[in-house]
């Protein structure tokens, strides 16, 4: 730790309106080091990195690279100073090839032709060097998520980056892909590169980093060597208080509520469902694990009534599912928590009470003869729901857009649970929420389970699934594994099932708990 810092932040402050996203941040980085930036969503990690990479301009403070001040707001200057960034949402053009994505910007725009031969040679040498292999002529759209990330890393290395920033790099990876990424990072740092690793997953940070800086509400609340850190301490620093997530208490499952048999959807590729069988019982939470884009969305759309092109049988409480008719589905006792709060869950430009009554437009309590809205009744109920679910807002007439993610999710819960549904579809219900909101949402789901609801929980977070579900199944390439007890397999085993693309036995039994793993 004697070497000179390669990078230093000095009093960096950035405001978005009244929100202080970064508050007087000072931080330094040395060659060969992996600095972890730990913090909850919205703590300001990505904002800080966007300032470093020139996407944003800081309001105050400076960034020094090798002791020289980096010109603010210039991505080009950042690249030339040796900074490379692997964005959380990959910045790749899908309809172009790997080589084209990597070489963009490396040649003068006034050149008469691209020197394809020498760039290919340089890329090949680099791939050998770092053990990162990708087909340079493949279209990015044909690559897996892990491969796309490798392209992003190669893109930075190709421009001779000395500081590599990775923004939540494991969010989209299976556990196996993540460990492969970690070994790549280790080989990179042995060559003297410095890495900034952004995450909110504690076990990753403890595994990969040499030093941790914890951000909370835009400010650094502590820096320490990873060797001196432990999980509880970091969690406490990140959240600022101790929040315990609710625990599952054992309860006997009741009658079957949702029965899916041989569900096969039309279409091609990984998102098309292939012969799905699943039963969810009352008093039971069944989790579906898997990397996003393997058919979970299709299943959720079918159950929500947005997609009706499928074959197979769907029953709810032994009656036929009201396929393709969202209103009838809701009326039949289904509560829906959609994946994307902004796009599907709420009409963010409308007011809170309007969103809350949007599933009840024709109910006699909320409307007069199904023609006029009974706004008095709707407002009164909205106020009750806001109270009951602890939504922090100015009142039922406030615009929904103004709410934070956690509060918006509470509204969706309030609406979904209002009719005491027999079946709840919860698709990524806590993604992007802070610890407090996560505890609230999970507590509500557990209460619904206690009341007798059958719940299908779709998530990419294995920790969440293993702590919150009674049974689990893994979805991969549109196929669903047999259902097993959530405690039966370790996270690593489940990760392997996620990656193995259907190399596991799918039983047709309704309740098994003894699904066997094959191929590992």
């Amino acid at each position, binding site marked *: 730790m004697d070497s000179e810092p390669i990078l230093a932040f000095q009093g960096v402050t950035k405001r*978005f309106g009244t929100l202080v996203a970064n508050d007087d941040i000072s931080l330094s980085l040395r060659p060969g080091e992996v600095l972890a930036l730990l913090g909850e969503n919205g703590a300001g990690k990505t904002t800080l990195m*966007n300032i470093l*990479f020139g*996407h*944003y*301009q800081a309001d105050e403070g400076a960034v020094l690279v090798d002791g020289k001040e980096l010109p603010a*707001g*210039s*991505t*080009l200057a*950042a*690249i*030339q100073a040796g900074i490379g*960034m692997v*964005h959380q*949402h990959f*910045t*790749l*053009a*899908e*309809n*172009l090839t790997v080589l*084209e*994505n990597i*070489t*963009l*910007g*490396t*040649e*003068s*725009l*006034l*050149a*008469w*032709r*691209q020197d394809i031969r020498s760039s290919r040679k340089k890329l090949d040498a680099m791939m050998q060097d770092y053990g990162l292999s990708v087909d340079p002529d493949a279209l990015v759209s044909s690559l897996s998520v892990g491969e796309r990330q490798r392209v992003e890393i190669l*893109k930075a290395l190709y421009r001779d980056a000395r500081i590599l920033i990775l923004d939540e790099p494991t969010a989209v990876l299976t556990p196996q892909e993540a460990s492969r990424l970690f070994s790549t990072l280790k080989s990179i740092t042995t060559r003297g590169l410095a890495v900034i690793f952004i995450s909110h997953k504690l076990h990753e940070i403890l595994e990969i980093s040499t030093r941790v800086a914890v951000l909370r509400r835009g400010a650094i609340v502590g820096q320490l060597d990873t060797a001196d850190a432990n999980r509880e301490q970091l969690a406490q620093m990140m959240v600022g208080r101790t929040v315990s997530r609710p625990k599952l208490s054992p309860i006997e499952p009741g009658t079957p509520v949702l029965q899916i048999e041989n569900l096969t959807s039309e279409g091609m590729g990984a998102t098309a469902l292939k012969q799905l069988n699943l039963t969810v019982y009352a008093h039971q939470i069944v989790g579906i694990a898997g990397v996003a884009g393997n058919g979970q969305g299709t299943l959720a759309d079918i159950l929500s009534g947005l997609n009706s092109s499928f074959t197979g049988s769907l029953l709810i409480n032994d009656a036929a599912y009201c396929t393709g008719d969202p209103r009838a589905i809701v009326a039949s006792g289904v509560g829906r928590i959609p994946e994307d709060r902004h796009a599907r869950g709420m009409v963010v430009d409308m007011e809170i009470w309007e969103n809350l009554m949007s599933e009840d437009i024709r109910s006699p309590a909320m409307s007069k003869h199904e023609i006029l809205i009974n706004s008095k009744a709707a407002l009164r109920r909205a106020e009750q729901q806001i109270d009951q679910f602890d939504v922090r807002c100015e009142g039922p007439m406030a615009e929904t857009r103004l709410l934070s993610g956690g509060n918006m999710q509470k509204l969706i819960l309030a609406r979904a649970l209002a009719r005491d549904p027999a079946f709840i579809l919860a698709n990524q219900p806590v993604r992007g929420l802070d610890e407090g909101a996560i505890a609230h949402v999970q507590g509500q789901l557990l209460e619904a389970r206690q009341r007798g609801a059958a719940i299908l929980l779709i998530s990419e977070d294995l920790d969440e699934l293993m702590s919150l579900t009674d049974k689990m199944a893994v979805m991969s390439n549109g196929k669903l594994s047999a259902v097993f007890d959530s405690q039966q397999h370790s996270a690593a085993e489940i990760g392997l099932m996620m990656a193995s693309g259907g190399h596991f036995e799918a039983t047709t039994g309704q309740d098994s708990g003894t699904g066997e793993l094959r191929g590992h």
Partner: protein
Amino acid sequence: MSDLFDILLTAGFWAATIRIVSPLIFGTLGELICERAGVLNLGIEGIMTVGAMSGWMWVYQGGDLWGGVLFAACMGGLFGLLHAIFTVYLGLSQHVTGIGITLFASSLSYFVYRMLLPNATTPPKIVPFQPIAVPYLSDLPIIGPALFTQSALTYLALAIVPVTWYVLFRTPVGLAVRMSGENPVAVEAQGINVLAVRTGAVMVGSAFMAIGGAFITMSWFDAFYFGMINGRGWICVALVIFASWRPGRALIGAVLFAGLEAMQVRAQQSAGAFIPYQFFLMLPYVMSIIAMIVMASRTKYPQALLVPFRRGERV
């Protein structure tokens, strides 16, 4: 049926096809360049009118023909800049802006024409581009007179297809243009100014469109009439989709459309007694709609087409 085959064998049919196709090539390539960079340019109809008027006016006021083409291109580039300011820098709706540009540019062209020539009752004429016979090749049967006895602007149109392809697919600046239409954030992340790339592409594309308009008044005809672009700009927009944003296919699509157009004029004469001529007028458009339906399901749109890019915005 045999009538149609007879038409296909006349040199006049092919010469007409090539003449009709020239402005379509300029317009389609211009639109293609804009859309490859992620900007739909519905100003095309108006920009072609500007090109037709300004190129012709340049010559009528005593300038030479090539100077007129250059002037038309510059005027087109200026309207492209206007479109880019609204859609690229201000991020306004590309549809609304484009239609606004078309209305503004056409009306302004007619207005300027009237201002400069207040007393003209019959449209005055200029001496347009003359056909150039390519030695030896022009002596070939049918294709000789059709392909190799055309005006310099037509040869330019045919030459510009491979040039556009080369620039888009073989040069760094072409890569930047295509990438801006696919994922502008990726371009930004590589240190290239997306707004500048898009603005440049829209200006060059608009200059092409204007040359397409100028062809009509300076090579095809010799005068400027109101309404003479007559929907050709919109056809170009459709041809870009038909071509899946590829210059080579744009040429094929334009030739197909022009062939149908040339065919219908001749079919009107031979079969006009039985079938109303409006039916033939309609044919090229019906065929292009059918072709679009067939092609559209397979096309890959530039993913960032119509998506404005704003720097430093919170996502």
